[in-house]
């Protein structure tokens, strides 16, 4: 084994935010108060689908302290990140239970709340569309009567007028129809789960003011400050340069804070009170159902193989429950199509991915962006196919593992740089879960131990011009400040970027000061902090900025040392001569320029800047899906061992394994944190989470007491995390993205383990003991 050649890369550097977070002194958005701050509260819909006949605000105005009441009539337009189909405040009709109808602004929060409760809405109920399948029927009630007229914000979105289809993305690769005819073994399976939620511990919150000079100042819990600027510009006609967004640290996001909902509402509220600063903080109930959540899905997968188990044809139909509006679900619809097969080489692919409007709370991005969801369906089908072929499920996955030289469903060419090593991940996970000890064992006390495996991949479907920038400003003591608009939401990005600076400048990481808060006016542009893209995009920008700083340091040092720049090297807080390292100058003596003994000075502060933009990405072809949607595919294999009790169908998760190939791992401990946290989120989603709807589309569990999730003690008894580090040539130090990947395979692995344990096909989530019991009962009948 070669020794780690790096100074900081690959080392478990402590998180730079840990001390303050442990002390409880970090201030999140809602922790700031300002004298004169006004408070906003929403009145929300009590119906899932209804015409608004009248909104009576007269009682609300009688509450002392009320300053303004805003309703949908005052801004009767549609906004959205992909398809502009959502009114910030409902007008004419409501489309989901909990939808914002009006904002009350008052001196105190309780006054605003009292008034909001006194807003009386007269509804005319409309028939409720309560599932993606119902929405897909030709005689289904229409949720958007004019979806064909909505403005498209990006190119790959295709609403079908006169239906509930908000978008339809197609993949047509090879000749599916002929290949399907010729397959020896064919299977078809159907899967489903309801919408659920991110439930980040920090509820969403924003403060907005419009100053007299016309500047709009926003403070928010967001993953996308520059998108807030874009939205306020596009739909509210404010100059981009007049919008400033501040983002402090974020208390968890998981994709849920990537879209823009709160800020336009608070902007309208502030405008209604002459631009005064207004705070809008969601209660937990609003954060769960009024704010966007995690998609639901109905999937049908048909796989065809030859007798040896080689996959020849795959057909994928995804009906995505996007809720009342498409938001990021339209992008998820696209992502679900472009990676529809999972990490398997299938020459003939037919995929129809539909973004379906329903009368459910609307959905947005969720950690993994279509991949945990499609992987659940694909990996269950792979297990079923293995049983039919009488092949070991691990073997079937190895036979079909995608490799350099193959192509993705969109015909993007895969090579050893842009694709991780799937086979190595499978082999290592197989070893770590002790697969060969047996997939299903009955224990002496009548319980069953069973294992399940799941293989996955994901590319980051960023905008084709997604980019990041970084600025390095040197201090008089030789330390350096890093400004970058990547947001710290718990994932540890700021620490990773500090490590890259320390590595490139060969300096002590303690001398790298990272600006934790983001300010869109002083930080360079950053697309968003989503899509596992920060290490890659911001990392490349940071390296670029380091190179710029190094050349400035060398230039000033060359003057001080009276030599040529080419002879100089930077490291250890100095700039020195390569051939005689003892001859050099301290960075602190040139950080603000060099001063001659006689007082004359030259050069000035070292300020490095760097940038990076995605290269050679394209939209997808409308008819075939052809295109290059993302820069690289990180891959992995996960496995779960459960102990299941046949007496009451309850189970414990004994072991959960992740083996990920995310290229070079910059920090093995933060990477492990990301994997474990992702595994938890995936297992919680798979085993317990989901909204419960009644027949009227009302959410019956809009609280953390009734919206169940995995609590302390219910987590796997053992988490095992390992990395394969196939370097990416264009990633910073060989790194690819990893942030979302811990989630992706968990639902598939857990469902496979429990299906093996209970010897039934568990194709629906969440995997509650009751579901297992019911499925067994039905299969015995």
């Amino acid at each position, binding site marked *: 084994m070669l020794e780690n050649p790096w100074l900081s890369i690959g080392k478990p550097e*402590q*998180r730079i*935010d*840990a*001390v*303050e*977070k*442990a*002390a*409880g*002194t*970090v*201030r*999140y958005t*809602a*922790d700031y*108060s300002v004298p004169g701050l006004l408070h906003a509260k929403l009145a929300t819909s009590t119906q899932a689908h209804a015409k608004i006949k009248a909104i009576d605000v007269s009682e609300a105005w009688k509450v002392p302290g009320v300053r303004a009441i805003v309703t949908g009539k005052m801004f009767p337009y549609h906004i959205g990140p992909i398809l502009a189909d959502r009114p910030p405040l409902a007008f004419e009709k409501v489309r989901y239970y909990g939808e914002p109808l009006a904002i009350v602004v008052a001196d105190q929060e*309780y006054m605003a709340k009292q008034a909001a409760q006194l807003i009386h809405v007269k509804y005319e109920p409309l028939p409720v569309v309560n599932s993606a399948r119902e929405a897909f029927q030709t005689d289904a009630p229409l949720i958007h009567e004019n979806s064909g007229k909505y403005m498209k914000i990006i190119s790959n979105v295709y609403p079908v007028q006169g239906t509930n289809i908000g978008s339809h993305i197609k993949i047509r690769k090879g000749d599916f129809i002929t290949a399907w005819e010729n397959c020896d073994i064919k299977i078809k399976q159907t899967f489903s789960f309801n919408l659920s939620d*991110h*439930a*980040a*511990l*920090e*509820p969403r919150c924003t403060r907005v003011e419009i100053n007299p000079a016309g500047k709009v100042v926003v403070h928010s819990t967001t993953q996308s400050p520059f998108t807030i600027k874009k939205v306020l510009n596009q739909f509210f006609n404010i100059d981009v340069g007049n919008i400033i967004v501040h983002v402090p*640290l*974020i*208390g*968890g996001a*998981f994709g849920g804070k990537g879209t823009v909902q709160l800020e336009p509402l608070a902007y309208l509220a502030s405008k209604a009170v002459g631009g005064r600063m207004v705070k809008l*903080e969601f*209660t*937990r109930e609003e954060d769960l159902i009024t704010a966007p959540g995690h998609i639901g899905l109905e999937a049908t997968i048909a796989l065809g193989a030859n007798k040896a188990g080689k996959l020849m044809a795959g057909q994928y139909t995804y009906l995505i429950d996007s809720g009342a509006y498409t938001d990021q679900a339209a992008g998820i619809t696209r992502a679900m199509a472009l990676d529809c097969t999972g990490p398997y080489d299938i020459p003939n692919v037919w995929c129809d991915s539909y973004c379906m409007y329903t009368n459910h709370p609307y959905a947005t991005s969720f950690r993994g962006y279509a991949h945990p969801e499609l992987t659940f369906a694909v990996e269950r089908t792979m297990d079923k196919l293995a049983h039919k072929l009488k092949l070991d499920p691990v073997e079937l996955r190895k036979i079909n593992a995608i490799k350099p030289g193959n192509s993705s469903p969109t015909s993007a060419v895969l090579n050893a740089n842009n694709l991780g090593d799937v086979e190595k991940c499978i082999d290592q996970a197989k070893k770590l879960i002790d697969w060969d000890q047996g997939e299903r064992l009955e224990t002496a006390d009548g319980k069953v131990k069973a294992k399940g495996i799941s293989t996955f991949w994901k590319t980051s479907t960023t905008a084709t011009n997604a980019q990041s920038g970084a600025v390095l400003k040197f201090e008089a003591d030789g330390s350096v400040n890093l400004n970058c608009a990547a947001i710290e*939401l*718990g*994932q*540890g990005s700021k620490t990773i970027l500090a490590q890259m600076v320390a590595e490139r400048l060969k300096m002590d990481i303690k001398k790298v000061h990272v600006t934790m808060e983001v300010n869109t006016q002083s930080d360079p542009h950053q697309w968003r902090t989503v899509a596992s893209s920060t290490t890659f995009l911001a990392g490349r920008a940071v390296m670029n900025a380091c190179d710029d700083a190094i050349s400035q340091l060398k230039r000033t040092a060359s003057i001080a040392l009276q030599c040529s720049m080419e002879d100089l090297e930077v490291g250890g807080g100095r700039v020195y001569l390569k051939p005689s390292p003892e001859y050099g100058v301290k960075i602190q003596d040139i950080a603000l320029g060099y001063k001659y003994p006689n007082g004359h000075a030259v050069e000035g502060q070292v300020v490095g800047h760097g940038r990076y933009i995605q290269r050679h990405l394209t939209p997808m072809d409308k008819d075939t899906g052809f295109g290059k949607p993302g820069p690289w595919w990180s891959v992995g294999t996960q496995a779960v061992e459960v102990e299941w009790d046949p007496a009451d169908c309850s189970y414990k998760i004994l072991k959960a394994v992740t083996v990920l190939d995310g290229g070079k791992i910059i920090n093995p*401990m*933060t990477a*492990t*944190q990301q994997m*474990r*946290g992702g*595994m*938890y*989120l995936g297992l919680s989603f798979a085993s317990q989470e989901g909204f419960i709807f009644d027949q009227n589309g009302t959410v019956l569990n809009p*609280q*953390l*007491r009734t919206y169940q*999730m995995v*609590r*302390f*003690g219910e*987590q*796997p008894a053992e*988490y095992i995390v390992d990395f394969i580090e196939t370097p990416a040539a264009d990633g910073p130090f060989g790194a690819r993205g990893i942030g979302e990947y811990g989630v992706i395979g968990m639902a598939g692995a857990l469902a496979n383990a429990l299906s093996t344990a209970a010897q039934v096909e568990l194709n629906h989530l969440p995997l509650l003991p009751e579901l297992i019991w019911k499925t067994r009962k039905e299969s015995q009948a």
Partner: protein
Amino acid sequence: MITNGTGKTVVRLHVNGEASDVMICSADTLLQTLREQLGLTGAKRACENGDCGACTVLINGEPMHSCLCLTIETINQPITTIESLRDSAIQQKFIEKWAIQCGFCTPGFILNCQALLNKHPDADDETIEEWLQSNLCRCTGYQEIKEAVKSLLPKGSAS
């Protein structure tokens, strides 16, 4: 004298070893008073329903959801918030064991762990689980938090 309604009254609280006068309505929760009047924002508002533990403080050494306590109930009782645990062993363990990601649940977890350490220095796995089930974390997967608290409990089995 506190009257019902929106009228305000000055009362004295005992927070982190100091006496502090605050002005409250009868309906104010301890969470609101700590955050809005004393600037102690380590206690987080995350569900206001006693479901998540992010607002946990110690009252008379007992971990309590400050979102479910009225401020008037806590007069003359010692209150401890995360701000007074600076450099405590449990905080250090949360850092050392990588038990912190976004940090939003961290103060509540640390206070609950501190109370557990005080009250049950011999806690076994079952007791730890019973205590910590009242706090939610969405980032870590709980393993690191378990390691942090168990490293200070001699009886907890090695993890």
